[in-house]
């Protein structure tokens, strides 16, 4: 794990950024250039974060029910979209229904002895002390900071009033708890900013916001009690205190949830919710296969970057994966059930042969099927997905006056191959500009049909899956994975996206030096994702903010390369 000296600290200076805006600039102590912090953001909890918090605070057997408002994807990430969404009236109704259902379960007879630690003097009368004890602790975990005296007093009073009416102590707790669960303080991650005592004129997240920043980044959930205690004691604002918490959190089993959340976001796995295939053409594909395919890719990634802590880029080349019997039928490999007939399928490790074109996540069903229409594969869609997801390269939208006649003409021949059909793009200048950066990549995946099944023939013709990615030639899909592995853009992509996920916004031009440092450090550490995550989590850049009056005109850089 990287333990090199952090770049924050020794000298700080105030400089003027272009445009004449005054801002805080940190001088590097270990090779990092000046960094101009970005603005603070307020984020609505994502669906998964909401579920994770309820699970972590109240246990996994609490049924959330209801329907969480849809998350918004912006700049490729739900994590960024979360800072651009509010709550609609209909969404609030759902939150309210879920809050009532959750609160009812927390105080029901099945759970109350475990979740409400104190015993009321009478279950038919208010017990201020017990109510205060429970609401203070629940509020601390849900709000990710201690309740203010006024907040706590309000909830305790409300609980007592409800108890008086219902003659049920736990109904009183339920009322106040459900109110907490619909509070903006729970549903939104509000960053509270304070002056940085170490840097005159600089601002930073307060300790509790810092704890949340750290926790949602690494665990995709709220801070645990230990982290909140470190915030409360001020330890989290010390270098050693931060590093101690980061190390503890990196070592925690909950880190897997954070890594899964990042890659599920990056790979756009929310689109699985609407993925469907033509049952006549792809009869093996069903909801179970789709769910397993999603999980397969996440397990593959976790195995590389977490379990084995290998070079992150191996997710594009690894032959090792995990399969269920249902996926085995899609991949046409023998995955035998392990348990009794009728028992749930179990995941089993599997390694594709060295000469098998399956290698890396781009050749897995979760990628090839997700980025295909319902009835066929699509080199263009897949090529675009590789550019945008694996390389963070933006592909411009097609012009409004696309002439499809040549493409349709090429498609009219049923025995033509996708390569032949797509060649029509080359003859139309307005199409060729973009398609030349998508189609050759997507054609490398033509050995996989629209549901991810392997094929060698299209229209009676042997499929040619060879191509070139940014100057690196390849022969087949496995070769495409190798080409992505070797492409520096893949490294920049994961560094940028992981940083953006942590920040909840795009990285500003002022933070370029920080990104450059992260990339350099990532390379020095053999492209191990854990080292990168630790570096990001330990970076003061993650917790420093630009004063709000300067935010409006702060330059925000689009980190994505626009490929033409």
């Amino acid at each position, binding site marked *: 794990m990287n333990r090199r000296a952090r770049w924050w600290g020794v000298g700080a200076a105030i400089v003027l950024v272009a445009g004449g805006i005054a801002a805080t600039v940190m001088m590097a102590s270990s090779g990092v250039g000046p960094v101009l912090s970005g603005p603070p953001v307020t984020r609505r909890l994502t669906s998964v974060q909401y579920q994770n918090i309820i699970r972590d605070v109240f246990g996994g057997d609490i049924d959330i029910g209801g329907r969480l408002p849809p998350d918004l994807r912006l700049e490729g990430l739900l994590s960024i979209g979360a800072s651009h969404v509010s709550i609609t009236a209909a969404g609030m109704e759902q939150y309210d229904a879920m809050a009532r259902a959750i609160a009812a379960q927390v105080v029901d007879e099945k759970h109350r002895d475990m979740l409400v630690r104190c015993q009321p003097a009478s279950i038919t009368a208010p017990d201020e002390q017990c109510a205060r004890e429970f609401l203070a602790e629940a509020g601390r975990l849900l709000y990710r900071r201690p309740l203010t005296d006024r907040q706590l007093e309000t909830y305790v009073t409300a609980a007592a009033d409800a108890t008086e009416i219902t003659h049920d102590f736990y109904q009183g707790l339920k009322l106040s708890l459900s109110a907490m669960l619909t509070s903006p303080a729970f549903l939104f991650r509000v960053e509270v900013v304070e002056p940085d005592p170490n840097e005159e004129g600089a601002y930073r997240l307060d300790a509790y916001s810092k704890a949340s920043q750290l926790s949602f980044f690494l665990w995709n959930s709220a801070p645990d009690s230990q982290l909140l205690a470190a915030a409360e004691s001020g330890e989290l604002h010390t270098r050693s205190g931060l590093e101690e918490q980061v190390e503890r959190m990196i070592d925690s089993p909950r880190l897997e949830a954070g890594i899964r959340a990042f890659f599920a976001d990056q790979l756009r796995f929310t689109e699985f919710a609407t993925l469907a295939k033509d049952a006549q053409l792809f*009869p093996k594909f069903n909801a179970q296969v789709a769910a397993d395919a999603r999980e397969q890719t996440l397990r593959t990634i976790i195995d590389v970057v977490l379990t084995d802590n290998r070079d992150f880029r191996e997710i594009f080349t690894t032959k090792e994966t995990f399969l269920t019997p249902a996926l085995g039928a899609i991949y046409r490999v023998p995955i035998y059930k392990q348990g009794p007939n009728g028992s749930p399928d179990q995941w089993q490790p599997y390694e594709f042969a060295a000469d098998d074109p399956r290698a890396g996540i781009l050749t897995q069903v979760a990628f090839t099927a997700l980025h295909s229409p319902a009835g066929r594969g699509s080199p263009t869609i897949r090529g675009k997905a590789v550019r945008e997801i694996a390389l963070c390269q933006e592909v411009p939208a097609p012009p409004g006056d696309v002439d499809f006649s040549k493409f349709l003409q090429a498609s009219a021949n049923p025995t033509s191959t996708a390569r032949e059909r797509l060649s029509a793009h080359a003859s139309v200048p307005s199409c060729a500009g973009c398609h030349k950066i998508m189609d050759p990549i997507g054609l490398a995946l033509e050995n996989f049909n629209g549901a991810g099944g392997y094929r060698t023939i299209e229209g009676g013709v042997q499929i040619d899956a060879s191509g070139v990615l940014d100057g690196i030639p390849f022969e087949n899909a496995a070769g495409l994975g190798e080409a992505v592995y070797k492409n520096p853009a893949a490294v920049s992509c994961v560094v940028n996206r992981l940083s953006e996920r942590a920040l909840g916004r795009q990285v500003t031009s002022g933070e370029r030096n920080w990104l450059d440092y992260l990339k350099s450090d990532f390379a020095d550490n053999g492209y191990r994702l854990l080292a990168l995550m630790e570096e990001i989590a330990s970076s003061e850049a993650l917790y420093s903010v630009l004063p709000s009056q300067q935010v409006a005109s702060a330059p925000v850089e689009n980190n994505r390369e626009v490929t033409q």
Partner: protein
Amino acid sequence: MWNNELESAPMKNLLLTALVGLAGFALCASPAEAETRHYAVSWFGMATNSSDNDCSEGVHPVIEEIYLRYASRLGASPEQIADWRKKMMAGEVVAELYEMMMNRGRIDGEPVNPYAHPAAVMDLHLPGLDGRYAYGFDLDGKGADDPDGFEDPVTHELGVDHQMYRALGCSRAFRGTLEGRPTYYAWAWGQLKSSQPAWLISITGQDLGKDGPVTVAFNRALEHVRFNSDGSPRFDVAYRIDPDPRSHNRFEGELNDGTVTITEHGSLRLLQNPLVAPEFNLSNVHLRLTLNSDRTARGFIGGYQPWHPVYWGIAGVGFGGEQQVTGDIPGFYHLLKRYADADPDPVTGQNMAISTTYYLEAVPAFVAPATEVTAWLGSR
């Protein structure tokens, strides 16, 4: 190796381990570097090829008409019969008739359940099939001299023994073709496919792309055969062979022009589902299974089958099923008994087995002994 498509190193290890475990197993004693193709049976039913002129005495009447025949024999007056017919044609429930039919057996003059006591039900002498063609095999070797022999519509072999088709082939529920499947077997297989573990076929030969000797193994899986959401059988599912020795069968055979036949005709035993029949038994087993380019296999398996279990499988549907699926159940008892052509009872001389042919379809699968791939089985 277990499957000609398997090449990965981990699976090779697994397969080698599995091969070692085969010593006492009937799956296959494959010669070195043999090729094996595995299949899961996705359709299984009596082979029928009904045509317009194969029941010279006509197809059996609908069940309501048969009920009226029974009622007449049991003493109902012509007027009563006419009234019941009129009501049934109007769609009315004729409870009195139904009560009579649910107890149309007679033992010592007392009404008894006809399905449980079919021998106690009068024989209406419903006709058997007398057409020329039937899928199958010349089981008794009599060839063209066999007076009961059919001609196979594909191979044109004469002397084909398929008396079960002759017995049941004029009943509406058993009429059909390979494509238009008989109602009874569509129902029965519909029940079985989701309620009994899959039946597996493994063909092993030196090179299944060429003619030559093969071994044919029939085994039962632990898992049910898997189907896709559109109802089609799922290819490439991995099945474990049930260690229960009652469902392991192995035959010597040969592959000729893509078709597998059995050359040493032994007996076959596969556990089934008591819902239809506890087990499936054939003696003097014959097979003609074509391995298709789409990786499926389809063909015929024939032999002599004890006819009592066939009857009890049909009888299990009872009164409701008799009306909706099968037709006259006790009538089938008498037909099967009449046309049974093998295994005479040493005391009564009644043949206890009947020649038959089943049509089967199968899809490619992965197969391995359960004891080799499932840790929990080994520790049971």
